[in-house]
């Protein structure tokens, strides 16, 4: 290798410290290894669905670790699935419309109503091992975070510039090389940002699913979520503070150790013609890049392996060879398709069977509840918009303010709303409020950030020459908002509102119905209905309420958000 002949001085300096970095990296590897051992022993141990949750802060590191591992495994599964799903959806013309529709619907379904079904299925798969319960939690988090990642990768693949595709075709890239040199790099930025959103969402669900009641069965997994809920249930403020501190600590740590380096690394995948002025740096990434251990690993193992794989796949053009009979993949496809259809038919029959027990009163009740929750969701959206739009625009317009406000709000946003629910509930109850209004606040808690961040991004993206025009002509502030700011942030605002609305619907399941200090707090609403049905093990009402909620979310998406999106893309698009 004869790369990088430049920077001799800084290079030499970096080299002389290399053993420290090596030691750090080595420690890291060792830590990972022991965690794997620990988790393995716990998972393969006997099943204990309702673990005793200690309120001692000394248990917090272990609980945090358990929660972290759940999130991590669910995330890795999501990533693999998302890439595979996006790839197939982008390239298989016949499956594409179907797969995209599935994505659209699954994204809108309130994941928490899957909880009972998934949990029961997993427990019956591994009845004697802790693995079953753990798998249930992981699958649930997985279903909560995978869809936006899959959609992001799919749309990245679809938006690869034509000339890059042609270049890879004209130079005869194999599918393998095309994937690693074109498709995956092109999708990386989208995947990274969606991963961050997904993992934040994962915490939300983890908090909810670590401790819940299903009919007569009590599920409790040792973890941060169950710790917080137990502490809240016991009214133990000190433990709650400890739990929250641990939570925030983990989130800040993840941000520093995982996301910062990943974002800094993904900088090189930005599809831009000119280098942007400020790249994001990360000390951890520098550490990894300087490590001699990793370097020799790369030189001795990764690179040769990669070369061999590449040579193995080279000379195989993307097109199918003429010799392969067409009927084999076709038959496989048909068999698979038939199996999927049969499975769906069977599931439909089962659902129909379940729903036969529902009477008219149940349906009107559910619709009524849906209306109430619908109003709550929108109230939360309006309330959130009221403060986030001015705040976001202020932050976006003033770089100095942004430097202080942005990291703070990022940390605030990444604390899962479900972790804060118990704390907030305490406050609401002591203030004498009921859950009917309280639920709106709880929804607000989780969803306002989506709007805030999108508004900030939109305000930053308003070109400065337009701002200068507004200043030059001395726009009054109402004119400035009407002609410049609101149209400028409109596309971003729509994106933020769509995400926030989805989040609010999901939050309604936790926000409208809460076990608190041995008694139940609940208010009338669709979310409460879903939670109550889960508690009581009434699958027919659960299914009905879930269907209503999914239908509502999908139709609002189609009828309201999609036309707004189209408007944003055509009329309010700022060409750069």
């Amino acid at each position, binding site marked *: 290798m004869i790369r990088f002949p430049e920077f001799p001085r800084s290079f030499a300096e970096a080299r002389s410290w290399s053993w420290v970095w090596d030691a750090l990296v080595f420690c890291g590897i060792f830590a990972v290894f022991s965690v794997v051992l620990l988790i393995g022993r716990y998972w393969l141990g006997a099943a204990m669905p309702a673990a005793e949750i200690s309120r001692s802060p000394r248990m917090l590191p272990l609980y945090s670790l358990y929660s972290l591992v759940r999130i991590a495994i669910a995330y890795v599964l999501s990533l693999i699935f998302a890439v595979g799903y996006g790839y197939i959806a982008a390239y298989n013309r016949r499956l594409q419309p179907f797969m995209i529709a599935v994505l659209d619907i699954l994204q809108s379904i309130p994941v928490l109503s899957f909880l009972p079904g998934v949990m029961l299925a997993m427990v019956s798969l591994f009845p004697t091992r802790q693995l079953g319960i753990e798998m249930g939690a992981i699958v649930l988090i997985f279903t909560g975070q995978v869809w936006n990642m899959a959609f992001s990768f799919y749309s990245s693949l679809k938006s690869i*510039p034509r000339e890059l595709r*042609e270049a890879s075709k004209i130079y005869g890239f194999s599918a393998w090389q095309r994937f690693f040199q074109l498709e995956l790099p092109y999708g990386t930025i989208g995947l990274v940002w969606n991963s961050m959103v997904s993992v934040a969402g994962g915490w939300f669900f983890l908090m909810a699913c670590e401790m819940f009641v299903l009919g007569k069965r009590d599920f409790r997994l040792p973890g941060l979520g169950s710790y917080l809920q137990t502490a809240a249930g016991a009214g133990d403020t000190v433990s709650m503070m400890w739990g929250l501190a641990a939570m925030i600590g983990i989130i800040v740590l993840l941000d520093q150790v995982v996301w910062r380096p990943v974002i800094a690394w993904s900088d090189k995948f930005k599809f831009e*013609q000119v280098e942007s002025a400020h790249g994001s740096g990360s000390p951890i990434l520098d550490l990894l890049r300087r490590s001699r251990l990793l370097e020799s690993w790369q030189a001795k193992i990764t*690179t040769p392996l990669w070369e061999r794989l590449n040579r193995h796949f080279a000379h195989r053009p993307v097109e199918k060879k003429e010799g392969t009979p067409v009927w084999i993949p076709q038959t496989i496809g048909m068999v698979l398709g038939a199996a999927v259809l049969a499975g769906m038919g069977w599931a439909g029959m089962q659902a129909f069977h379940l729903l036969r027990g529902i009477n008219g009163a149940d349906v009107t009740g559910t619709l009524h509840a849906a209306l109430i929750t619908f109003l709550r969701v929108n109230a939360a959206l309006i309330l959130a918009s009221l403060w986030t739009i001015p705040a976001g625009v202020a932050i976006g317009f003033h770089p100095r303010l942004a430097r202080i406000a942005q990291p703070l709000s990022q940390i605030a946003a990444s604390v899962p709303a479900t972790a804060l629910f118990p704390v907030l509930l305490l406050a609401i109850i002591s203030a004498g409020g009921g859950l009917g209004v309280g639920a709106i606040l709880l929804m607000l808690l989780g969803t306002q950030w989506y709007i805030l961040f999108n508004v900030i991004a939109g305000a930053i993206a308003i070109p400065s020459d337009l701002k200068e025009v507004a200043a030059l002509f001395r726009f009054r502030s109402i004119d400035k908002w009407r002609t410049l700011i609101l149209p400028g942030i409109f596309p971003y605002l729509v994106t933020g509102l769509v995400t926030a609305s989805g989040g609010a619907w999901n939050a309604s399941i936790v926000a409208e119905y809460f076990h608190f200090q041995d008694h139940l707090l609940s208010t009338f609403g669709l979310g409460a209905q879903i939670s109550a049905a889960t508690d009581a093990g009434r699958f027919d009402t659960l299914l009905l309420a879930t269907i209503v909620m999914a239908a509502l979310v999908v139709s609002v998406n189609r009828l309201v958000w999609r036309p707004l999106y189209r408007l944003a893309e055509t009329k309010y698009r700022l060409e750069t």
Partner: protein
Amino acid sequence: MSETIIEARQVEKFYAQPNQNRIQVIAPTDLCVEAGEILALLGPSGSGKSTLLRMLTGLAATSAGTVLWHRQPVGSQPPNVSIVFQSFALFPWLTVLENVEAPLKARGIGPEERQKRALKILDSVGLDGFEAAYPKELSGGMKQRVGFARALVVEPEVLFMDEPFSALDVLTAENLRGELLELWQRRSMPTRAVFIVTHNIEEAVLLADRIVVLGKNPGRIRTDFRVTLAHPRDKKSKPFLDLVDYIYTVLTRPEEEPGAAPTERPARPRFQMLPHARPGGVAGLLEMLAERGGRSDIHILADDLAFELDDLLPIVDASVLLGFANVSEGDVEMTPEGQAFAEADILTRKDLFRRAATTHATLVRQITRSLATKRDHKLSDEFFHDILDEHFSEEETVRQLETAVHWGRYAELFDHDAEERRFFLPEDTEVRE
């Protein structure tokens, strides 16, 4: 006629519409790309230039008709082509070196070989030292150099370019065009033909050996002609401007049937230039060749004679001009006339030289004729100076006349009086033709 590499037979592109109609993008078209030519495809936007390029490379399927590469349908095996794109189409996450290596990687070439070839080609396009940079750190012109390097590293048989200079500023484009032309003319590109799509008329006339102009609605060939202006082409010369005007007229009057392209031969033919060699040198070269069986490599010959190649070349050129030798693929070979000259005695040689010079050397013939028509058979230098001034620099005019004097004296056609500064016919000779 040179070898045909690509032949498009009645290729069409159309999109079927639900209502039985179809949108015809390109009408049935025949087009060949031949070895050794730079073919420029010009046309207004929407005339299907890029579509045609993509069909010829096999990137896009034809709706009807066939594209043949060496008489084989293009689908049967991927042709060895490269494309230089308007948007550069570099992978921003790969370094310059990795970008250039990528096509070699696709062919399963190992890392050392890959790096060696990529570095060599980067060097030849002037990107030495930029291997580790990322494309976004480079200027537009540099990026397109990487684009060229990546295209050339696979040694394509035909180099396709889709508006390669459109995204660059005027000066950079000009510079890069010049370098491309130089690579092509020095034969330092392994490429056998270049196919360039452009909307810039001047660019087409500067580069191309052949220009095809497309019309639109639907795309079709409106005119197809050769450009034989010598390189480097002068953008201000009349034949150049005539061609530009002609293409402009074709493009701006889509409803009219285009006329024939203007004859690019300039109205006044270019004056033949005599190589600065003396008859004795020509004789010496021919004798050497005769000793070597009538044929030799020029380099070897120059080495054996301890000559610089630059000193030998005028003598070779003079022999070729006089019809005594031919040059092909770096070898110089005697013609029968040359053979006869080498074997003749001095008087016969003079006869043979006289015949050859009056047949082939324009200036020698003109001087002889002018002197013959003058009653006193004398003409001052000024007269010939004025004729040659039109074509050559002052210095070159003097050298041309000097060479003509050497040749004329040897052939005993005419003589020159340096003191009186005039040409004259020797008294005792008649005018010989």
